[in-house]
């Protein structure tokens, strides 16, 4: 039959030379280039594994070794199995123990008397592939956890049934001032002073945000109330439905908006004054001058016109002072905001 042409690096930890030889022969039957490293003691294997210099595709481990008890071995296997696929080699007497080791992360166990070349080959391949798959899953899980933990935006997860906060990231702890423990002892409702601030939401929406966001008022540890833009999403965490919250503090944004709105209002008032109030005495003056040019006014009427001109000038003066005061007010308000 055709042998597997891949080079597979195997670390065999086995104190019985006969068993070791058998394993080696079985491996060679199906694998063209088994790169086998054989050690007889666990303590010898340890530096090879922890060094990082040597790289193995799989570890075949005898359960009964002279330099380590089974209990200690299991403790070591737990760590080992994170890095490498581990297949246990055992006799019938330790079968129960071998079965238990599966829950420690061991990939497979083989009963020595029943091992054949095919069984060994299949177990080796299967364990390597499965371990690779689990590892990539774990890495992806870590990546997602990092996205959560290292996100610069405050985020937390809560249980929609009880409202209890289950996890919180660094940014939330820094922004809100509560410690992680304090967060985990809180409910979502305790954090949130005001559920939805429609008024603020409208303003933020007008800036171009999507409409699936709500604005809530939250209390920080130091008592300050902040306005936060909230995006909620459901996630399934360990098979339970959870809500993941992304909170963006928009307090300053809103304050700035309010200042701009106030200034706009003042500028509109000024514009209104320019177009209505200033124009009134000016148009009156123009009319009077027009009338005086065309003549045909008696002395009394001329006197009256001069009075009108004077009062128009006074009115203009007052309006200009008023506008100037309003303009100053509008700009000083905005500067205060800065």
């Amino acid at each position: 039959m055709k042998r597997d042409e891949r080079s597979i690096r195997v670390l065999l930890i086995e104190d019985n030379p006969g068993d070791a030889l058998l394993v080696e022969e079985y491996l060679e039957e199906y694998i063209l280039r088994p790169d086998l490293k054989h050690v007889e003691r666990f303590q010898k294997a340890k530096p090879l594994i922890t060094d990082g210099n040597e790289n193995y595709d799989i570890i075949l481990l005898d359960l009964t070794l002279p330099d380590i008890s089974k209990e200690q071995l299991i403790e070591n296997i737990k760590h080992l199995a994170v890095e490498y696929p581990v297949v246990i080699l055992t006799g019938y007497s330790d079968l129960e123990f071998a079965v238990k080791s599966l829950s420690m992360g061991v990939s497979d166990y083989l009963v020595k008397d029943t091992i054949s070349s095919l069984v060994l080959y299949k177990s080796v391949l299967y364990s390597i592939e499965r371990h690779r798959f689990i590892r990539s899953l774990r890495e992806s899980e870590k990546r997602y956890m990092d996205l959560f933990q290292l996100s610069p935006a405050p985020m937390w997860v809560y249980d929609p049934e009880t409202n209890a906060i289950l996890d919180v990231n660094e940014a939330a702890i820094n922004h809100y001032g509560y410690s992680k423990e304090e967060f985990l002892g809180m409910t979502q409702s305790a954090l949130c002073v005001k559920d939805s601030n429609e008024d603020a939401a409208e303003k933020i929406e007008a800036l171009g945000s999507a409409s699936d966001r709500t604005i809530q008022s939250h209390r920080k540890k130091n008592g300050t109330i902040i306005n936060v833009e909230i995006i909620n999403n459901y996630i399934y965490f360990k098979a339970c439905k959870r809500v993941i919250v992304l909170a963006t503090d928009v307090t300053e944004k809103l304050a700035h908006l309010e200042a701009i709105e106030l200034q706009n209002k003042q500028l509109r008032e000024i514009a209104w004054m320019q177009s209505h109030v200033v124009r009134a005495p000016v148009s009156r003056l123009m009319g009077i001058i027009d009338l005086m040019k065309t003549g045909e006014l008696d002395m009394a009427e001329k006197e009256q016109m001069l009075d009108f001109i004077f009062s128009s000038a006074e009115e203009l003066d007052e309006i200009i002072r008023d506008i100037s005061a309003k303009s100053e007010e509008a700009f000083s308000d905005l500067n205060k905001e800065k």
Partner: protein
Amino acid sequence: MGVPVIIVDDDAAVLFLHEVMVRESNFADDIKSFSRAEPALTYLEAYDSECVIFLDINMPGMSGWDFLKRLDDSDLNDDIYVIVVSSSLNSLDRKIAKNYKHVVDFVEKPLNVDVCERLKKQNSLKHLFAGG
């Protein structure tokens, strides 16, 4: 000569000026002046016949807009023609004025003889002066 004219403006000087201009331009002899919109409306409700109103917008109490709204809501004579005379340079005011059915024109203050002459030839008004 001409048609009866009603002038509504809270500014005494403007009222005087407008009276002079309307008279000088031979727009009308029969002129009634009001410095408040309320009494002007009361007078109009009783009068209820063909006339031209020169209406100011910014007035204390009832504004020119309020006056126009009341006029539109009433079932007064269709031959009541309103010319809005405003000191406002705001183009929005001109647009708003067009929405009232009695309004036939919008002119900026000050009213002068030339403006009055032009108004006499205005499409909605020229029939009033055809005989003169």
